[in-house]
């Protein structure tokens, strides 16, 4: 039997890459392959679900073995894998560009820079690279990967979106009873995701269109300094009671936030794929987004796509238009549902499985 084992620096259940890794493991096993998940550390993982990567000592006797590396940051694991003799695959989810993070978190620079270097180092030994998006694929090609296939992130929206947190739902409903629209953005608090721009646009929106509006920024932080600046910024604008930074939330609470949202606003300047766009569309929340990095290809024509460099007045007015124009909202919701269908788990799993089957058949 052939084995394809996955390796990733940090496994975090409920994260986009954690969910993807789980789905990839299922897909590989459905092909009759042996597949384990190895990580340096695991968060919220079921016992035995993820193994310490030091436990991996090499292929079992006579078993052809491939190593599939989930690449999203720098790690000593990548260097160790690169030195191993087994054939390798890279699944690239993009790495935050150093210039975006460096001013805020200098301590992360070496990790991110290592990730970029390792991405290049692995290009010579990787038989195949799988990219979440064409945007990611172009980066792989640029550093020398010879064979790149685009397969979107594997995400089971039907399963993830089914159960809501009743308590959070009640709190959101109570807030909504006072009137005003609910803006939502989901993603780690990070300078490249530009939550501060969302806050600026939201401040303009409250001033000009809806003084009772609320903004929910859902997600943990990957930059304490940026998070602190964001909190102080919100306080300085006097928006403390209308802007909520929830921190990391449970999957059920996340569902409640999507269900309570009137609009999803994404002004991120760097996304390798952006799963929350799919989640928003799945939950019938209209999307207003900046056309940066991989956002346009994930969103397609299912949202209001603003050109890069747009000012925040345009963002605020776009949200107003979406919320004020019922027919436009209907168009966006319908287009969103159709778009999500293109990324359904059945389709993406088939694409991933076909890719792997082609690779293994070609390898003899």
């Amino acid at each position, binding site marked *: 039997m052939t084995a394809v084992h996955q390796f990733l620096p940090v496994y975090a259940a409920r994260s986009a890459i954690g969910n993807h890794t789980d789905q990839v493991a299922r897909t590989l096993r459905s092909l009759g392959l042996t597949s384990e998940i190895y990580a340096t550390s695991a968060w919220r993982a079921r016992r035995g679900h993820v193994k310490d990567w030091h436990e991996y000592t090499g292929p079992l006797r006579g078993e052809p073995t491939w190593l599939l590396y989930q690449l999203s940051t720098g790690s000593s694991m990548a260097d160790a894998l690169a030195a191993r003799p087994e054939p390798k695959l890279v699944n690239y989810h993009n790495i935050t560009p150093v210039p975006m993070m460096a001013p*805020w978190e200098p301590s992360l620079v070496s990790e991110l820079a290592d990730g970029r270097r390792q991405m290049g180092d692995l290009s010579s030994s990787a038989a195949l690279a799988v990219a979440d998006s064409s945007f990611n694929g172009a980066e792989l090609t640029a550093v020398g990967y010879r064979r790149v296939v685009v397969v979107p992130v594997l995400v089971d929206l039907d399963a993830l979106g089914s159960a809501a947190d009743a308590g959070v739902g009640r709190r959101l409903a109570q807030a909504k009873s006072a009137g005003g629209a609910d803006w939502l953005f989901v993603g780690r608090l990070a300078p490249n995701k530009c939550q501060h721009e969302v806050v600026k646009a939201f401040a303009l929106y409250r*001033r000009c269109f809806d003084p009772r509006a609320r903004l929910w920024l859902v997600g943990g932080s990957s930059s304490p300094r940026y998070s602190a600046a964001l909190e102080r910024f919100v306080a300085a604008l006097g928006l403390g009671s209308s802007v909520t930074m929830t921190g990391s939330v449970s999957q059920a609470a996340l569902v409640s936030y999507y269900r309570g949202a009137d609009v999803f606003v994404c002004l991120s300047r760097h996304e390798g794929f952006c799963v929350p766009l799919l989640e928003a569309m799945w939950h019938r929340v209209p999307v207003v987004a900046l056309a940066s990095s991989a956002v346009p290809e994930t969103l397609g024509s299912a949202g209001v796509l603003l050109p890069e460099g747009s000012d925040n*007045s*345009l963002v*605020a007015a776009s949200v107003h238009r979406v919320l004020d124009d019922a027919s*436009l909202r209907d168009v966006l919701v319908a287009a969103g*549902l159709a778009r999500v269908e293109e990324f359904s788990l059945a389709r993406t799993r088939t694409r991933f499985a076909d890719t792997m089957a082609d690779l293994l058949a070609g390898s003899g």
Partner: protein
Amino acid sequence: MSDAPPESAPLDNSQLLVEIRQEVERRRASGDLPAEMERELDRTFAEFAPVDALDANFDTIVSKIERSAVIDLSPSVVSAYPGAAQMKQVVAKATAFYVRHVATQASSLFQGVARALRLLGERVDELELSKGAGDPARWRELEGLPEARWSPSSAVSWDDYVLEQLGAPSGRVLHTHAGDGHLVRRLIDAGYEAYGVEPVADVALAASDVVPDVRAMAAADHLRILPPGSLTGLVLSGLVEVVTPASLVELVGLAASSLAKGGTVVVLSAHPDAWRRAGPPLAVDLAPGRPVHPETWETLLARAGFVDVTTRLGFREQLAEVAGSDAACNDNFARLAAAVFGPADFAVRARRPL
């Protein structure tokens, strides 16, 4: 939540954005959506952002350094862990004398550095003034230079030429120093996704009567924030001719990076009349920059990696229309015109290699 999607008409994002921009301009004009508020929001966030995360000017950054030079000696002692807050308070009190000693010296150093930067900035300002360099907009403010002096060509319309050079509509086209927005309007009517930037705020606001998207900012400032390869067409006109030589070189580099492969740049010269126009002597004599010859544009564009660089002279084209197909006669007319009227206005077109 997800069900089978209902049928609906596809979204025309470009048309929607045009409508939303018109709404923004209407609200700006009425004062509902003050442009100053956006700047104020930027300034407020800048207070909390690290210096090197700011896309700001010299004064903003020095101001931030000056504020940072005062070191906060009151650390947060809150903690979610039992007893940790008391522990932090004890440590803070016990080390206060030493921290204050170090902080005082560090503050003095930072304040000294900030003061030195201020003085350096003032010296640079003086140098720029004495050498006639720097930002033309500032000169205009200082000397009351008439706006008309900086207007793009008015005697010859290059609109048709620009449309011809840009080819079939695709992607985004930017007109820098768009003035009254008439060219942007022409481009939009011709099917381009066009917009403009105009450094004079009042002019940009007036242009909103003609087109939905003319932004009040300078060409270089806007090009700097554009992602590489995001434009398919770029029309440079007006003030781009009278910036300092260094800024001109930078502008050509920015044009190269902002255009996609195969993208087209068209440079429209200022009309010679604009240079002969009278103004306050001090302003006219000390105005920065010089009119740029087409050969200079050609060289700069070629050095920046542009290909297929060609120049078209305004006067000669007009004379050719008058004189028909007689080439020798046209040349004589052109020489006569050059002798009598001085240099012709011109357009330089170049393309990014595929």
